[in-house]
């Protein structure tokens, strides 16, 4: 059983500004889930709380609405509402 699960977190647009970073690695204790990741993110970047409700979350480029388990090396992105064009 791994001691910790290290994941990569990407922040875009308003999330990037709230985090003050575009990406970082976060180590979570095993077993790791989206919710435990957010607890950690909010500890590091309290300003993310203001946009948490509007942000979609992707794991390895797939949007997820559930509190799924995370594996070592997963890439999680915080995606504010999008507007291309």
């Amino acid at each position, binding site marked *: 059983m791994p001691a910790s699960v290290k994941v990569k977190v990407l922040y875009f*647009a308003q999330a990037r500004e709230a985090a003050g970073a575009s990406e970082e690695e976060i180590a979570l204790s095993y077993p790791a889930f989206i919710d435990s990741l957010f607890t950690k993110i909010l500890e590091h970047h309290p300003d993310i709380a203001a946009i948490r409700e509007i942000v979609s979350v992707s794991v390895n480029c797939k949007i997820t609405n559930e509190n799924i388990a995370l594996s070592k090396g997963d890439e999680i*992105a915080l995606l504010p*509402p999008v507007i291309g064009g």
Partner: protein
Amino acid sequence: MGDKYKDTKKRITNKEIKPGDIINSVKDDQAGAIDFFIGTIRNFSEAGKIEGMFYESYITMAEESLKQIENEANQKWDVKKLTIIHRIGDLSIGDISLAVAVSTPHRDDAFKACRYIVERIKHEVPIWKKEKIVGGKEKWVSGVAIKK
């Protein structure tokens, strides 16, 4: 769809979009119509007078999402060739941010497919834009929550 759409195609770019190149990329002997949409940066918005726009994207996900939109347009219409290019970075008034070109045997399909693609790009692809308002303020343009 075959090998018309190779995975190596880059749809997100930080370089200037050249309309002539894009039209040439969709020319096809079986096409009697090319519909070409160009999105440009205008000098006003609800926030006031605009002097530029900043675009950013989650490029790996955006490329996948654009590929999927292309595939779906292909299934709906008799598309011969199709090119989508979205620019990111700092753009000035008049710059081209988006180009979509579609060639089909007949014009009706070209109009419909092009419109369909543009509308989906606005609401589904991880791209964000921030207005630079004259006077120094900046504002993220409000968007749509990205879904599964």
